[in-house]
């Protein structure tokens, strides 16, 4: 079963095409990098999968269904900005997740939060940026979803926090589910990815296994990305 499928998917904002006739199939049990420079259409694709946007043309299916109430039960989404009520503390956030999502694994969330050593009564607004990012990721990964959509999970945090976040993603990996990670910090995610998608101006430039990209190009994914998206001519 394909976890996510795009058929001739186009999304226009006025005369600008953020995604242009995209065809894409993602299988289950994979960790996939959605890679591209700013403005290449990464967030648009993720928002279409969450029905925060609707396609201009074509379609996007999640486990064979159009995005909506049913797909939200199986998709766990981490937006690229803080989306949680800042006045809530860990305990209240856990209650909220339990209420909203049947697939939320409280035990798992509590264990991971314990490893962060944060005061359960501290409201989110008093936490550091890194702690907030970690907490949001923990909540997102504590759902037993079929598809995780992580929009820039490691942007704006220090390297140690990045390691923590990648470790959290790996330790929650499940063969039945797929994880789509959008980022432009390729060197950091390279070793955890199965597949990479290069997105440029709304088009898919490349979609392949990371190891075969390294084998074919003879360089790392990060270096290959820099070649494909070079911003100047020489």
């Amino acid at each position, binding site marked *: 079963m394909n976890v996510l499928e795009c058929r001739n998917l186009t999304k226009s904002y006025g005369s600008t095409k953020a995604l242009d006739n995209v065809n894409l199939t993602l299988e289950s*049990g*994979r*960790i996939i990098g959605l890679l591209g420079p700013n403005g290449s259409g990464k967030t648009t694709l993720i928002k279409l999968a969450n029905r925060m946007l609707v396609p201009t043309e074509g379609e996007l299916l999640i486990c064979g269904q159009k995005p909506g109430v049913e797909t939200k039960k199986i998709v766990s989404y981490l937006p690229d900005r803080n989306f949680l009520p800042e006045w809530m503390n860990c305990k209240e956030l856990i209650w909220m997740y339990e209420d909203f999502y049947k697939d939320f694994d409280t035990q798992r969330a509590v264990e991971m939060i314990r490893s962060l050593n944060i005061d359960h009564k501290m409201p989110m607004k008093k936490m550091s940026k890194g702690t907030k990012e970690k907490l949001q990721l923990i909540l997102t990964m504590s759902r037993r979803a079929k598809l995780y959509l992580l929009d820039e999970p490691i942007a704006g945090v220090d390297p140690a926090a990045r*390691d923590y976040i*990648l*470790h959290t993603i*790996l*330790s929650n*990996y499940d063969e039945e589910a797929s994880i789509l990670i959008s980022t432009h910090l390729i060197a950091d995610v390279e*070793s*955890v*990815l*199965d597949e990479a998608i290069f997105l440029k101006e709304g088009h898919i430039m490349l979609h392949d296994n*990371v*190891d*075969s990209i*390294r*084998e074919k190009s*003879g*360089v*790392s994914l*990060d*270096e290959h990305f820099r070649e494909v998206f070079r911003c100047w001519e020489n």
Partner: protein
Amino acid sequence: MSWTFKSDQPIYSQIVERIQIRIVKGTYPPGSRLPSVRELALEAGVNPNTVQRAYADLEQNGFLRTERTNGKFVTDDHDMLRRLRMELSRGYIEELFEKMTGLGFTRQEIIEAIEAQRGENE
């Protein structure tokens, strides 16, 4: 923390080499059980599918065997392990020769340089 990888080779083949070194060194003794795919993936900071592929490669070459429910085990075939040790050393020596030839050394000069340095180190 996580392992570091060379950028010009597939990650799985670098994991294969690390495991081979651990087998030869005795970190994973003959007949012993290897870490689960998940454990090793977390240690290395890589995708579990990549570790799976590395294990499959090692198994295909006879260095590991699978016990249906118990996981992966290092072979206890000592001929096989001796061959692995030689294979790794051959690779390193080849690499040494390649680099030294790149510096313009002849075969004879390389061997002399090794001898000379060994004298210094002793």
